[in-house]
């Protein structure tokens, strides 16, 4: 019990860092689901590509970090948009299974491409502002973790403004609630779908870039992060961005606590067990809306 309490702050710090990444993935996932009802299995790969592209921009192209990072995020936006334009946009009336397989195909394609371009090795990225740990009470936090928290917070704030203040954002929310009515109101739904994928691509890439200094990037890194991001989205409630954030942070912290005190081997299973329990007991998640309320 003493160990539990004394290790709590450190677990919390670590958990919030992982959780922030899950939250960013979950948000990207939720945004796409909201406006298209599509489960984007390639979401984790957006993160993987973001990290690897940032590494290439920094080392092969010798860009300074303040250019490489936004560059990688921009690349993510582009990749997301291209993915939608090429594979989703042309479909006429796809079934759920068709869409799931297309996004799975996309994720495999991205992994294959990454393996060809960057090989099977892991690549490092320099931490943004150094690696000297900062002591917050009894816990030690690397500066990069602060960047992770900061970037996630900034993303959430920007998204909030975007969805509540800008016309495009409001249009996206309208689409999420009722696609037919939105289209009748003159909102170009297909354009909205492209935007959501672009946005999610950027968010995913951001997540990848900020975490890479802590975990090293390789072509396989996106899969598990993506899947746990889904767990977070389901925990928080599909369709709710704040749910995605809450779900991500919760899973990050609880998973770390579980891994530290119960079983490190089963730590990866924790997120999925939580997701299953949620699906069985309360499919709409913590903050999601009840089923049947969207046209």
């Amino acid at each position, binding site marked *: 019990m003493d160990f539990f309490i004394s290790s709590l702050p450190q677990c919390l710090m670590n958990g919030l860092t992982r959780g922030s990444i899950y939250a960013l993935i979950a948000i990207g996932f939720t945004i796409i689901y909201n406006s298209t009802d599509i489960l984007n299995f390639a979401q984790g790969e957006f993160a993987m590509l973001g990290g690897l592209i940032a590494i290439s921009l920094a080392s092969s192209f010798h860009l300074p970090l303040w250019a490489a990072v936004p560059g990688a995020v921009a690349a993510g936006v582009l990749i997301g948009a291209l993915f939608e334009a090429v594979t989703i946009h*042309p479909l006429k009336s*796809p079934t*759920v299974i068709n869409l*799931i397989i297309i996004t799975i*195909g*996309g994720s495999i394609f991205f*992994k294959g491409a990454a393996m060809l371009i960057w090989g099977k090795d892991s690549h490092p990225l320099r931490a943004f502002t150094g690696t000297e740990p900062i002591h917050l009470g009894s816990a030690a936090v690397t500066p990069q973790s602060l960047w992770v928290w900061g970037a996630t917070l900034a993303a959430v704030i920007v998204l909030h403004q975007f969805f509540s203040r800008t016309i495009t954002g409001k249009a996206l929310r309208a689409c999420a609630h009722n696609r037919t009515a939105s289209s009748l109101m003159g909102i170009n739904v297909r354009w909205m779908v492209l935007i959501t994928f672009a946005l999610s691509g950027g968010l995913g890439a951001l997540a990848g870039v900020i975490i890479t200094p802590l975990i090293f990037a390789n072509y396989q890194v996106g899969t598990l992060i993506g899947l746990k991001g889904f767990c977070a989205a389901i925990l928080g409630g599909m369709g709710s961005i704040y749910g995605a954030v809450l779900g991500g942070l919760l899973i990050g912290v609880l998973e770390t606590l579980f891994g530290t005190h119960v079983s490190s081997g089963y730590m990866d299973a924790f997120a999925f067990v939580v*997701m299953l329990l949620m699906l069985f007991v309360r499919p709409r998640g913590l903050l999601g809306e009840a089923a049947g309320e969207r046209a």
Partner: protein
Amino acid sequence: MRGPKGRGMKKDYVALAAITALVCGLPLFVSNIYYLSVLTIIAIHIILALGLNLVMGYAGQISLGHAAFYGIGAYMSLILTSPRHELTAWLGEFSWMPEFAVAAAGAFQHFTAQHMIAAAAFAAAFTGALALIVGIPTLKLKGHYLAMATLGLGIIIQIVFIEEIALTGGPTGLSVPYFRILGRDLDPNTLSYYYAVWLVVIALTLLAIHLVHSRLGRALRAIRADETAAAASGVPVMRMKLMVFSISAMYASVAGTLYAHYITHVNPSPFGFMFSVKLVTMVVVGGMGSIWGALLGVGLLDVLPQFLTVFEDYEMLIFGAVLIIVMMTAPRGLAGLLDAAWRRAAGERK
């Protein structure tokens, strides 16, 4: 397949007979052991695809975790037939387990090591029962939620394979003896194993054909077409979904048993998300709701890489691209394409 009853099934019988003849005759022309081994693996995959096709193509339920049932079958066979497996030691670790239960398990293990058919049967029954239990909460979910739930289950089970080292041998795995039947050991490197596996495939395909052309098969197709209308017409939807889910799990378990005694060493890596995806791909690319589609899908996705070994590095890239392209251009799979071509040739309206 479609058509008034009786006629459709006869077509399937004919096709099955043709395939049986092909499979039996092939070794006369092909003696290269490597090709025969590819065909054996194809046979095992066909069993998996048949089961998954029943769930996805006939009952319309998505399963992204089917590799787990495959693995459970394989590991069950491992546990029940390996002479040195420490099952009782692992069970003994659970303090709540009574002595007699552990002893009974040990005795059972001793029995199945001698009578491996019993091991295979028990594995299938166990996997089928597990599918029923897991299916009750899971199959209440629809669409994406069901996909995520099956995905989660599959991942959790694979992690159990990796972590329970005393039971499964962990990441390095454990060895499996040759399958002993009628007093003989079936060496997987011989023609006997090839015939044994294909015999099982033919039998299971026959069962699947019968199921599809029966009252229950019709009910399944109705469920896939429109669940609510099917229920209002008297079809017990949940019960049927559970039934077919359980059957598909048993098929997967049989495949796992055949695989374990073929590869003679089982480790967790084939039983993960990627393989579940590959299985779903085989079924969908081949054509859901069509037994022959399942076979086509397996054939294509197992044989094609053989020709593309030059492009090994590109395998993942190509696989992903193929998935996307097929889904975009032929959403009903190859069987759907062939079916459409057949109809056009026969002059029917679409």
